[in-house]
């Protein structure tokens, strides 16, 4: 089995549910209504199939360059916007920032992903005058707590990492471009601006930006020629000895050895050892596990994909990543300051030969040494002083090679960070200190926005998230398909949520979108009004520094839906009312609404404070637009937005957005800002990412056109993300489960039977039935497309019970069951390869002192139906017949429902992805739980 898994794992890593709170739409039933008058662009946006025919075969756009990826992204975004599945955008969490007039920024217009370039390209034109300022000629800023250490290798937050970045160099960094409208990546500790691609042991500059490899060579600065030295401001003689020492090649490798040493248990090393994908390092886990006694040079050399060397270009280290990737992502994943070189002699001195690893970058246990004594600088600043709970000073490294080459860079002599714990609870504290002249910059808090937003010192910075109201525009039928008793996303029971008929009306949703005065709403909150799906920091060309929202493709994506309303923050009272008028006419004609009805929308918010700070204005906008529409007045209809908040912020996702129990829901997730295309997965209606938050439109419909061909949203996304195999535009199934039955028989146990077949078997059957597309797909050679059933299991009760099989021979690998109320383990057995038999460890809730061999309570038989002979033999059908006996069987059966999950590894042109096929089915004659009798 080919174990190289790239794209889908990468995409899984890329999508993360974040804590920022702060993506409907179209009713398939009403797609034919086409009420063009409500659309600002004046075009009919009802779904009509494009002329071009849908494709059969492999579609892989993985190697697309940045320009094409931007075009695809624009196509997908337009589709999403026109079908209103992005969620109702409100504002971007940008902020007003004030700067002291003495600060000359590197650039006046904020560069997304880079900033104003104050430290590198900017300068200070005077001193701070407030007498309490300690370092008047330094750039003064603040933090709200004293972390008491600067070793980011052993910290799980961002504060220490921010401090560390002042003194720790990285292989690559960013600098403002010549035009001062973006930034370029360049080599910092690397002597080249990009890593070199290594293939078959040969390194070359990667001319093709999309060429992939797992091994990359970084030429590094070493010795006198490298012009980078260690520095310290410690007064201790033993530390001073390292001031001005050259960085050597071994130091780069030692940094990895120290970070990943299992004995030191550095947080980031532990995390790196557990990581997979292109951001991980080959062999990291094995070295971490094998170095519990200390740094193990032999093991490192043997296992870890970090090797040093010298060639005609210079000193280098070769890094082998966990998965192949292109040059940009290789550079990006290696641009961490966690990999900054470390002088091992210094490290041993500070940590007493590794006995006290926590001394590094912090205080020793007796507080005889401080962070200033216990770390060396390899970057533009050195740690000058650390006064506990008062302030941290960084002094410019006058030796820094960039400044030697260009004295205009880094002209600010230092940075002083005030520690103000009062700012933790008082949002106005830091701003008041700024007004008193003690720091150089501060964000304007809500209480002062009106007073200072037009101040000459004020500037606007872009945000990282667009806050939205997600939309549930399902009809009841669609909702039951997704979340009903046999729901494909969750099984909550049929009609467990009553969908509002108006929420599935396209014009009603349009009315909502146009009814909100985003400019006023955002201004009141000091934010930036937004009609975008992505925030400003998403880069369609990360290497070129191009933000997606600045591209023509993005503008085109918004034009049809928003039209002229873009000039007014997506707000148009006239259009909103017109849309509501049409919606009312349609709903009344369909009998879904009668005269004098009160229409309700349930809106869910993340915190109780949102009911005061965010909800009221939204309610007012929406209700006013609807209630003042002509049709609403004529028919005496009223709209009421019922805002509610959850107790715990995550409930808004888990109990509402992700399970369709809402009409509008305030929530947001973020993805990798450098890969916005991957993030589009969250808009797919099949919830393949697990993070779909907007429901209604079926994104597998063949109603999207790209370059003259017919696609669905799902297949176009899949084609560019990991490749897709299509039969007339419909994604070929990876597998299916049929004839599933589950029945409990007293005295015997729970009997489960099902058939499964992988995608190839499905195609063979279709081809036999005359499907020409299937015949064509079957001709694809195995190295272009293959499917491999890589996992098969039975689940009960959302994972509390689990039986896992080997799909090649039906062997039960292990089985477990927990009490769903207490999570206490009740049964656990596994197939022990040493004894080649089942071993039961926990039975009836008791952990066995002597595990029992050969007493399985789960047994299974498998039959395979194949066709062909010899090399042509293929699996047509696998069938399972499984029995879970005794109390375990009764417990499994008593849940009343089981799930069968099949995992298929799909390989398209060498790129693997994991596809899951699952069914849920009820248990016949389900008994009472044996636990209930206790």
């Amino acid at each position: 089995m080919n174990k190289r898994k790239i794209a889908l794992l990468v995409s899984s890593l890329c999508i993360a549910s974040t804590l920022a709170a702060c993506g409907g739409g179209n009713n398939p039933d009403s797609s034919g209504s086409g009420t063009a008058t409500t659309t600002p662009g004046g075009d009919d946006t009802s779904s009509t199939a494009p002329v071009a025919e849908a494709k059969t075969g492999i579609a892989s756009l993985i190697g697309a360059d940045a320009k094409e990826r931007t075009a695809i992204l624009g196509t997908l975004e337009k589709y999403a916007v026109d079908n209103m599945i992005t969620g109702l955008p409100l504002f971007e969490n940008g902020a007003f920032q004030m700067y002291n007039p003495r600060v000359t920024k590197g650039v006046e217009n904020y560069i997304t992903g880079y900033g104003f370039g104050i430290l590198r390209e900017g300068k200070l034109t005077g001193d701070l005058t407030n007498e309490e300022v300690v370092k008047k000629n330094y750039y003064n800023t603040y933090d709200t707590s004293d972390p008491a250490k600067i070793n980011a290798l052993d910290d799980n937050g961002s504060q220490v990492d921010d401090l560390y970045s002042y003194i720790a160099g990285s292989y690559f960094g960013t600098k403002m471009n010549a035009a001062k409208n973006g930034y370029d990546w360049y080599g910092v500790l690397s002597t080249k601006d990009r890593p070199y691609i290594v293939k078959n042991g040969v390194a070359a500059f990667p001319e093709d930006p999309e060429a992939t490899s797992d091994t990359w060579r970084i030429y590094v600065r070493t010795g006198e020629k490298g012009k980078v030295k260690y520095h310290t401001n410690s007064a201790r003689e033993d530390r001073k000895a390292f001031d001005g020492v050259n960085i050597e090649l071994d130091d780069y490798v030692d940094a990895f050895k120290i970070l990943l040493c299992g004995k030191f248990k550095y947080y980031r090393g532990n995390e790196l050892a557990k990581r997979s994908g292109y951001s991980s390092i080959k062999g990291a886990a094995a070295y971490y596990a094998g170095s519990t006694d200390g740094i193990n040079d032999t093991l490192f050399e043997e296992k870890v994909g970090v090797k040093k060397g010298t060639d005609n270009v210079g000193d280098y280290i070769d890094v082998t990543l966990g998965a192949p990737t292109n040059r940009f992502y290789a550079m990006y994943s290696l641009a961490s300051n966690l990999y900054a070189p470390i002088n091992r002699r210094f490290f041993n001195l500070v940590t007493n030969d590794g006995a006290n690893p926590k001394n590094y970058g912090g205080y020793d246990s007796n507080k005889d040494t401080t962070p200033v004594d216990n770390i060396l600088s390899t970057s533009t600043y050195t740690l000058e002083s650390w006064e506990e709970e008062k302030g941290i000073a960084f002094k410019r490294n006058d030796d820094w090679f960039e400044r030697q080459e260009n004295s205009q860079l880094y002209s600010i002599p230092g940075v002083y960070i005030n520690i103000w714990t009062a700012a933790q609870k008082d949002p106005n504290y830091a701003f008041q200190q700024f007004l008193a002249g003690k720091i150089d910059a501060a964000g304007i808090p809500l209480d002062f926005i009106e007073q200072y937003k037009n101040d000459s010192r004020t500037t606007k910075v872009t945000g990282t998230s667009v806050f939205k109201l997600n939309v549930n525009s399902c009809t009841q039928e669609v909702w039951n398909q997704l979340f009903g008793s046999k729901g494909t996303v969750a099984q909550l029971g049929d009609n467990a949520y009553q969908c509002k008929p108006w929420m599935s009306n396209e014009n009603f949703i349009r009315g909502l979108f146009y009814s909100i005065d985003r400019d006023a709403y955002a201004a009141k909150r000091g934010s930036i009004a937004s009609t975008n799906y992505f925030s400003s920091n998403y880069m369609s060309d990360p290497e070129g520094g191009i933000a997606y929202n600045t591209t023509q493709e993005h503008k085109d994506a918004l034009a049809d839906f928003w039209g002229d309303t873009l000039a007014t923050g997506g707000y148009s009272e006239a259009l909103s009312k017109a849309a509501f008028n049409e919606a009312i006419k349609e709903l009344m004609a369909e009998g879904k609404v009668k005269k004098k009805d009160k229409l309700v929308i349930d809106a869910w918010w993340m915190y109780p404070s949102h009911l005061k700070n965010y909800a009221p204005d939204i309610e007012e906008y929406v209700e006013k637009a609807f209630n003042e529409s002509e049709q609403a007045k004529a028919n005496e209809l009223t709209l009421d937005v019922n805002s509610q908040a959850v107790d715990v912020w995550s409930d808004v996702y888990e109990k509402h957005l992700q399970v369709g129990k809402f009409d509008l829901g305030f929530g947001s997730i973020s993805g990798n800002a450098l890969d916005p295309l991957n993030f589009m997965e969250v808009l797919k209606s099949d919830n393949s990412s697990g993070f779909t938050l907007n429901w209604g439109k079926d994104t597998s419909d063949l109603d999207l056109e790209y370059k003259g061909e017919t696609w669905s949203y799902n297949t176009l996304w899949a084609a560019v993300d990991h490749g897709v195999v299509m039969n007339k535009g419909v994604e070929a199934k990876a597998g299916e489960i049929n004839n599933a039955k589950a029945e409990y028989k007293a005295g015997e146990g729970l009997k489960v039977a099902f058939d499964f077949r992988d995608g190839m078997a499905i195609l063979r059957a279709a081809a036999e039935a005359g499907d020409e597309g299937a015949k064509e797909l079957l001709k694809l050679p195995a190295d272009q497309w293959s499917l491999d059933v890589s996992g098969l299991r039975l689940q009960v009760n959302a994972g509390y019970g689990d039986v896992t099989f080997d799909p090649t021979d039906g062997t039960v690998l292990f089985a477990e069951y927990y009490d769903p109320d207490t999570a206490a383990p009740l049964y656990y057995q596994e197939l022990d390869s040493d004894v080649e038999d089942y071993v039961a460890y926990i039975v009836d809730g008791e952990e066995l002192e002597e595990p029992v061999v050969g007493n399985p309570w789960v047994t299974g038989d498998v039959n395979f139906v194949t066709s062909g002979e010899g090399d042509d033999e293929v699996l047509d059908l696998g069938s399972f017949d499984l029995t879970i006996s005794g109390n375990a069987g009764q417990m499994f059966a008593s849940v009343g429902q089981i799930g069968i999950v099949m995992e298929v590894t799909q390989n398209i042109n060498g790129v693997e992805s994991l596809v899951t096929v699952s069914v849920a089915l009820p248990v016949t004659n389900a008994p009472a739980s044996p636990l209930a009798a206790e």
Partner: protein
Amino acid sequence: MVKYTIQRILLAFITAAIILTLTFLLMKQLPFYPAAGNDEAKAAFFTDQVGIGNVLEFALPQAKYGDPLWTYTDKTGHTHYYYLKPAIDQFVIWVKGIFTEFNWGRSLYVFPNVDAMVLIRSRIGTTIMVNLPAVIISVPAGIGLGVWAALKKNKLTDHIISTVIMIFISVPSFIMITLLLYTLSFNLGWLPATWPSENAPLEMRIRGFILPTLALSFGSICGYCRFTRAELTEVMSSDFLLLARTKGLTRAQSITRHAMRNAMVPILPSILAEIVGLLGGSMILEELYGVPGVGKLYVTAISLQDYNVLMADMALYTLIGLLSGVFLDLSYGFIDPRIRMGAKK
């Protein structure tokens, strides 16, 4: 007396042990907040917690420890079950460390890696330095005002002093500190708004003492004043003072030679107790004014749930409180020969 002293000291230690045990066990009942983030970050966090000793890790579920905090299946397919370590187990390890090595543990979050006791030792000096001027000023000022009020009993001066004292006593200390900050620092700009850095000019560092001294001494001045006035007025109305006047002593002589001495009997021990109490510091002042003292350390340790520092700090405060009470009681016997603590009737 000796026996009584020993008994009181032993009782103080026993009381401290009970307080610390209860505090430890109750604190360990606080909710456990795992790290946010992806599975790798969480797995690293829990491994960290296992190393610290708060969490246990198993390869199989362990019903006896209740619900697992988290389960994680790693790349190799192995599942890790993380359970909260029982509070009693942690307590036993902690107590053992204290009695065998006087090891109070290391700070985890406030000052990572530093011994909890070293941390406290490094802060006590600052706390004493901040509190001592307040004691030096408040004692004579409070007693002086009290004497004046007593001498002018029921006159306008007495009424004014009593009213002012009543007002200041009624204002909670954190309000007082905030008012002083707001008025003297933010509005008038006379004094620094936070404790000056050690790198600040000497003049500013001296001015930095003014605000905490005022804030700390107001309450003490008021207390001493009221107490002194009450005691002095009572003594001044006693018969032996009348006899002293009758014998020919002037008013001033009778007050200084006889009345004051008797009035000081209950006051001196509280002065001594306050000096001992210097070590504890003022949490509110240190937190609001940014003084890196023991009080601020305590507040920070609570908010970061740094149990080792918290318990060491708690032990310090408990012992200071209990021993100063013992000291107070015993000092009565030295100051007033009529009082013999522990004497049998």
